């Protein structure tokens, strides 16, 4: 039997790239609003955060409902999130700052919200670089998995980046931060359950 849901990955890929197409068309038609650079920067950043949290939602979905499809698109969603993070950074560095290195360095060192966003971007680079099957094999699954736990740190920094960016209404960043905390809690509970089960098994064996 062929792999189930062969269309799932292409659909997630196509769907995740649609906003880029929409932004491109809007840009060409001049309908991105009076401050198009800021608009693109904000949209790319938000989509990056949503996709990053989306990639972290997949394992809990498996844990909660026993579905098997989430695991198959997890790395894809992670890579798509990184694509948006990269585009977000490039929009900031090239379009917004015109590659003014001193201004960018000043931003990173002086402004915590930019520092946290930049740190998240840096953390995601090794994860994106090791996202191929060959790299999983080369690192060994246990080590690969340990490395990829960094994604939680990166997502946390991403949420913090958003939180500190907002001027007065914190409801949106708080929503994403809460979601992230909930996802993390589901995994902690699951890990604790597994640990207990293992201990009981070992105790039974010893007895």
């Amino acid at each position: 039997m062929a792999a189930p849901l062969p269309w799932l990955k292409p659909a997630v890929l196509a769907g995740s790239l649609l906003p880029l197409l929409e932004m491109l068309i809007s840009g060409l038609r001049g309908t991105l609003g009076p401050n198009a650079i800021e608009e693109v920067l904000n949209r790319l950043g938000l989509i990056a955060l949503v996709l990053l949290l989306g990639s972290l939602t997949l394992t809990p979905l498996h844990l909660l409902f026993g579905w098997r499809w989430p695991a198959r698109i997890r790395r894809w969603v992670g890579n798509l999130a990184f694509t948006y993070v990269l585009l977000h950074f490039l929009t900031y560095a090239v379009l917004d700052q015109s590659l003014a290195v001193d201004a960018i360095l000043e931003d990173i060192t002086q402004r915590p919200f930019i520092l946290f966003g930049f740190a998240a971007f840096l953390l995601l680079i090794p994860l994106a670089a090791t996202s191929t099957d060959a790299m999983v094999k080369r690192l060994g699954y246990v080590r690969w998995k340990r490395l990829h736990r960094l994604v939680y740190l990166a997502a946390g920094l991403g949420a913090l980046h958003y939180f500190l960016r907002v001027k007065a209404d914190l409801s949106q960043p708080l929503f994403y931060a809460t979601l992230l905390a909930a996802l993390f809690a589901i995994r902690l509970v699951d890990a604790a359950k597994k640990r207990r089960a293992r201990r009981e098994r070992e105790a039974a064996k010893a007895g």
Partner: protein
Amino acid sequence: MGLLPKEPPAGEITPEALYLRRREFIRGAAGFVGVTAAVGGGLIALSRRGSPPAAPEVAGIDGGPSPDALSIASRPPQFQVDEPHTEYAAATTYNNFYELGLDKGDPARNGHSLRPRPWTVQVDGETHRPQSLDLDTLLGWFPLEERVYRMRCVEAWSMVIPWVGFPLAALLRRLEPTSRARYVAFETLLDPEQLPGQRRGVLDWPYTEGLRMDEAMHPLTLMAVGLYGRTLPNQNGAPLRLVVPWKYGFKGIKSIVRIRFTETEPPTTWNLSAPNEYGFYANVNPQVDHPRWSQATERRIGELRRRPTLPFNGYGEQVAGLYRDLDLGKFF
């Protein structure tokens, strides 16, 4: 024999394997389209929340007569700026007016709920004549001038806007402050029906702002009732707003219903919300960074590259003297 339909060519005959899997194929196609649309549509909708609305066509701006043109008595040459004006559509769809929504496009979308007439301005505090003034009475006192000012937002973007209004100094003189009045405070309308953003406590409503008396009396300080030759649109702070071109935009309080003279520095909304980010003075100053963004440069709306920000937004020659004895790093 010519009567029977021709057999289709071999290439057009569906292979048996595919024919048998057609249901699976249709399901797959539907799944693909559904998931693509859901993921794409969801991301687009989330990321476009609050984006500026499509620029409206405006009579009198895009050609044709303007229904709400103001009669302008003068264009004093000392209050003009020789720089291209920001497009009307940009100045009226890219606004910070949290009482009408938090995103830049919200005020233009939600502005219809504000009713700029009838409108009363309460005058009290350190004045010889506390009073309630009907706006139209007040407007009858002053000929309208057009002044083109740079507008620099604390978020590091800027515009060039032709305002229509009258000097605040002329109004304050008529309101007869006492000798104890050292500051003047302003308040925005408090009415969640008209300003639905006030239903949420993101800021301490009503919005209040204030100026030192000498700042308020400075000839550059303007009470605006219009822009681009026409009545102020609601999203720009109708019917009466403050314009202080050497200060960050948030000092320019909108939809004013109260003017109060005080002896001590009045509390101001953004300063109460985040005192380390927004000072009482809020003079445009490229040397004093906001904790979350540099103030050294700005993006002029309509331009691609950032440009350097000027001290006092380019009005230093006129206003720097007001602050000769003030440590501007401390009193930002």
